[in-house]
């Protein structure tokens, strides 16, 4: 018996619906159809009237979620793809993110973003939006990399009184499996040491965690002990755990799947450089996708984003510095 990342998300949605009458789901094709990725399969039947198909109106979908949240509900929104959250961007960053600050009335919405690249998906079905949303005050941004986190963090996202951007990685949906759903979880805001080591810290999140772990395994065969930190949530970012890891290893490589200008990896490097400069034995490094739109063809796509191989190469370079 095993459960996939996608099944864990579906189980969390079902549990949230069962446990809390304030919860409802709203998004495109999520009703009888069960969603583009089947994350809501059977939920409309199981919870009649609480899993609503929405028109193709991301702005109005988020706006309605905000209005419902202000009036006592706990909406969970599915964006069909993270890329399609841009038409709802205004409502997310200007309405949801500012609402509590302005009015002292919380806006507890959860926005699920099926994120990241899969082969052949192209420029508009592959993006990772976490850095954009993390930039805005008032939002919490989660990037679960494991089946257990996909389940427990989604439940936490629904329970949190603030708007949560839940970045679930499409590449993990069916490939990542765990023996069972977790019975306990780390709190949101805490990073996890996914692999202990003493020579170099790789800080990663979402699907890149698995490329980082694969790289660490390969480098172990070369005698290097790589520590891998899974950020879990990028906002809030657990600076303490990052800094403690860098204190152990003296070397930092931060890996992210999104575009290279700014973003999560730049934030990690900035924090370590400004607050932990003395801990570093070598310049902190970052590895991201290339600064182009995400290509369609697998030959191009495989080179566009970081992989275990390029993470390995970057780590080897850093170990030589």
């Amino acid at each position, binding site marked *: 018996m095993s459960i996939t990342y996608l099944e864990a998300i579906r189980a969390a949605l079902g549990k949230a619906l069962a446990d809390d009458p304030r919860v409802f789901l709203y998004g495109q094709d999520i009703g009888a159809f069960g969603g583009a990725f089947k994350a809501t399969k059977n939920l409309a039947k199981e919870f009649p009237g609480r899993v609503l198909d929405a028109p193709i109106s991301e702005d109005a979908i988020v706006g309605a979620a*905000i209005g419902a*949240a*202000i009036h006592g509900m706990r909406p969970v929104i599915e964006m069909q793809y993270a890329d399609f959250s841009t038409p709802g961007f205004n409502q997310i960053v200007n309405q949801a993110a500012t609402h509590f600050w302005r009015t002292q009335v919380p806006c507890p919405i959860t926005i699920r973003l099926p994120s990241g690249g899969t082969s052949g998906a192209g420029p508009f079905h592959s993006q990772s939006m976490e850095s954009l949303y993390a930039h805005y005050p008032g939002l919490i941004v989660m990037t679960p990399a494991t089946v257990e986190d996909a389940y427990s963090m989604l439940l936490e996202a629904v329970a949190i009184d603030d708007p949560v951007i839940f970045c679930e990685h499409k590449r993990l949906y069916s490939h990542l499996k765990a023996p069972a759903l977790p019975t306990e979880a780390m709190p949101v805001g805490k990073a996890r040491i996914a692999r202990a080591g003493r020579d170099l810290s790789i800080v990663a999140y979402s699907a890149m965690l698995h490329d980082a772990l694969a790289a660490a395994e390969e480098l172990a065969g070369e005698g290097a002990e790589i520590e891998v930190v899974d950020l879990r949530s990028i906002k809030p970012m657990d600076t303490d755990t990052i800094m403690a890891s860098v204190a152990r290893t003296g070397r930092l490589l931060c890996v992210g799947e999104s575009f290279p200008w700014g973003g999560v990896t730049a934030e990690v490097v900035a924090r370590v450089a400004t607050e932990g400069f003395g801990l570093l034995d070598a310049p902190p490094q970052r590895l991201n996708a290339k600064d182009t739109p995400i290509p369609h063809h697998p030959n191009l796509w495989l080179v566009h984003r970081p992989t275990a191989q390029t993470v390995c190469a970057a780590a080897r370079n850093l170990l030589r510095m």
Partner: protein
Amino acid sequence: MSKGRRGTHCPATGTVAVPNHLGVVCGAAWQRNGTGKETVCARTMNLVRVFPMQQTLECRASQDIVSPFPEQYLKAFGLMVVARVLDDKMAGLYRAGKIQGGVFLGRGQEALSVSIGLALRPGDIFAPLIRDGAGRLAFGEPILDAVRTYLGSALGPMRGRDGNVHRGRPREGLLAMISHLGAMISVVNGGLMAHRFQNRKGLVGAASIGDGATSTGSFHEGLNQAAVERLPLVVVVANNQYAYSTPNHRQFACDDLADKAAGYGLAARHADGTDLEDCLRVVAEAVAEARAGAGPQMVFARLLRLCGHGEHDDAQYIDPRLKESAVGRDCIEVAEKRLLREGWADAKAIRAVRQTAAREVDEAVATVQREPAPDPYKENWCALASEHLGDLFEHPVSFPAISPISSHQSHPTPSSQP
């Protein structure tokens, strides 16, 4: 005048007006119990007890009382006057350099706006826009909320974190608008969806927008969504001929804005935005239809903005022919003439309405000018309700030593977007 246990008898109309009914004539919410101070009822010149500047929206206009028409007209007129006086006061304070940011007036839109507020009940949702001072008062927003938000009082609903027209009390159904036009429509939809989930029946939501907002994607998405969900939404479009400086002919190309409603499957009504009676009737009809379950409704009213976009704008672009046409009439002057012509009020009564409004606004300003401004050292600087999840950013320097301004020592800025 005789004072009964439940209300005040108005000999002129032979009706009994309960306090929360008359209180709003003077721009103040009414509380049935406790002590208030005496003020003048615009309708009869009788003294009634009202609580000016009540700090909650618990008592609103209308309630379930159906007013005889002249009384409703008078109540609306009283609120319009308060809104105009308040606007004029804010404009004066802006010119005197006492207000940070912009000042945005509802001049010319009071008749339409007040009609929305009067048609709503407790539990309803109202998303006002920038020219809805009259509608806000009618919905029950205290004068103090406006003054505190404009002057930046720490005691106001936005506590200096947001200003001018960006105020609200979402828990009491009064949404705090963002600047992005059309964006509030779907938020009202969501509130109405929540009511449906919570099995709260008979409640409606109203969103106020202008001709400019009809060009936004949010407007389109919001209306379509309301129609698909068959929500009790009323969208009132104030076509005031200009979106900032852009005239109608550069904003849309259909013959009549109301043609858009049919495209969404919505009912549409026209109103003459300069005519209070027409506005009261048409908006009330639309709200009643929505309340009865007939699905989303739209009202399209023509009027002219009798001021700039904000007080930084001299509005020299407004076509003088429009000002002289019927659409350029001042709805308050039109209503006043009607009151006199019908004998519903005499000049003395109208004067009393204006005096009462002026006094209440002056009192509010005097109160707020003694109130503290927000203190940057006491601000928690956390945008999250879950404060423990706030990200921690190291600041290389502590806050610079500044001299915080108090709410009455502001400095003017040349212009500001709402």
